């Protein structure tokens, strides 16, 4: 008969507890060390330095002519800068377009006169097997109205055919022209980008366009009547 030595039950328990306790200590020490490096050190770095500026507000200095001169100079600078900054914002009508939420805001004399939904670029990238690609996004920044058109017609660009799997026709081909799809008015922002109407009104408020800004009929009319050639359009 094979005789096996069975370890003392008490000894086994004690051993396991000690091992678990040791590992627990190691884990706690590692976490504390990590927390100290991640948060303790940055917190210590934020202890206010000793060399902070001490505000004296010396009365003697205030009586000094050079002090008065410096104060006058800095006040003049502030006035000049304020005037310059305000000169960027004229009282003319302008429009703001929020491409993240697909909203527009129309201003006249710096007052909001109309706001509502619009549709902007879908952020889709159309790729062909031949390696051509187009990104459908509305550009951001400062633009101005380059031209205004009533009853605009749309000259379909190459991507419009590629997107539908159609062969690309010659540049002056009649199939490039479509009528009535841009609504009653169009305002050009340059580089082929337009603010126009849409037949897909249920998509207003969504990012679905190829880069143009689509509007509701009433909003488009108000914008057409408010903005002039040269009016600014801010897109963000």
């Amino acid at each position: 008969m094979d005789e096996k030595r069975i370890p003392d039950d008490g000894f086994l328990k004690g051993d396991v507890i000690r091992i678990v306790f040791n590992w627990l200590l190691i884990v706690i020490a590692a976490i504390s060390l990590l927390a100290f490096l991640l948060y303790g050190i940055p917190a210590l770095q934020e202890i206010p330095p000793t060399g902070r500026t001490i505000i004296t507000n010396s009365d003697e200095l205030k009586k000094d002519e050079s002090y008065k001169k410096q104060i006058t100079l800095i006040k003049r600078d502030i006035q000049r800068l304020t005037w310059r900054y305000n000169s960027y914002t004229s009282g003319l009508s302008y429009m703001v377009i929020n491409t993240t939420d697909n909203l527009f805001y129309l201003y006249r004399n710096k007052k909001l006169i109309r706001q509502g939904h619009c549709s902007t670029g879908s952020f889709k990238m159309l790729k062909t097997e031949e390696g051509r690609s187009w990104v459908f996004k509305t550009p951001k920044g400062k633009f101005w109205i380059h031209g205004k058109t009533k009853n605009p017609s749309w000259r379909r660009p190459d991507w419009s055919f590629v997107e539908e799997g159609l062969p690309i026709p010659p540049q002056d081909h009649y199939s490039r022209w479509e009528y009535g799809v841009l609504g009653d008015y169009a305002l050009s922002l340059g580089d082929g980008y337009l603010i126009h109407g849409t037949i897909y009104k249920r998509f207003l408020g969504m990012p679905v366009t190829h880069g143009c800004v689509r509007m509701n009929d009433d909003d488009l009319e108000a914008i057409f009547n408010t903005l002039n050639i040269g009016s600014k359009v801010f897109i963000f």
Partner: protein
Amino acid sequence: METERIFKSSDRRAKIIAWIVIVILFLIYYTIMAMIAPARKMEALKSEYCYKQNENNPVDERIFTDSTYLDLLHKKSFLQSRVTMAATDSIYLSIRLSDSTLNLEISGVTVHRAQIRRINISTILSENDNYIILSMLSSPLTISKNFSSIEKEPLMIKMAPKDTSEYVPDIIPDTADFEPVNYIMEMDNGIRLHIYQEDKLKPGDGLYRSLFDIYHSMRYAAKTFWRVITFRVPDYQPYIKLRIPRSDAKIIYRALPEKGQIALYF
């Protein structure tokens, strides 16, 4: 047998004590190096932005301890910074900690305003009576790196159909959007702007924000650690941590260019 056990036990204890001493010494060295960093940063800023006397317009340097002058300088710096940014046609951000607002502006026109719900700012940046800091803020801060939980431009790639039989019209896009919005913008002068979403749309949003924060804290700690173990003083990056509504955070991140500019007023 008993003697051997006692010897082993005392040997292990000695080893543990030696390790503890090594770790403590390293931590002391690490802490000293890390605490030198803000002073080094301030020295670097001083050498770049300290007042240089002009022979035609000499200035009594006591003026830099005068609150009236510093207050005017504070206003001037902010205005100067905004005028510089407004001269470009780009989108920029004005942070006004004094009235807790973030303004997205283009050429002097405020196109979007967000309310700041919580502010946490480095000590060095909260010194609004320091000539050096005010001078630094007279030119815009330029973003050099972005780290974000959302994409700047959420591009979707679509392959063109070969012919009309393959063409599938676009379906209505899914505008349901609950992605957590947290990001860090690192400026060219080392300042970090952290923007976190304040509202919790989903139960996990708070946890996600913490994980985002821990991940980036680890990244910055790793940088510090590497410099310290190579016997160099780590780079100190002053921070501004803001919590704003999620929708505003998303609008601001998407609107600002990769290398966008920021003006700060506190």
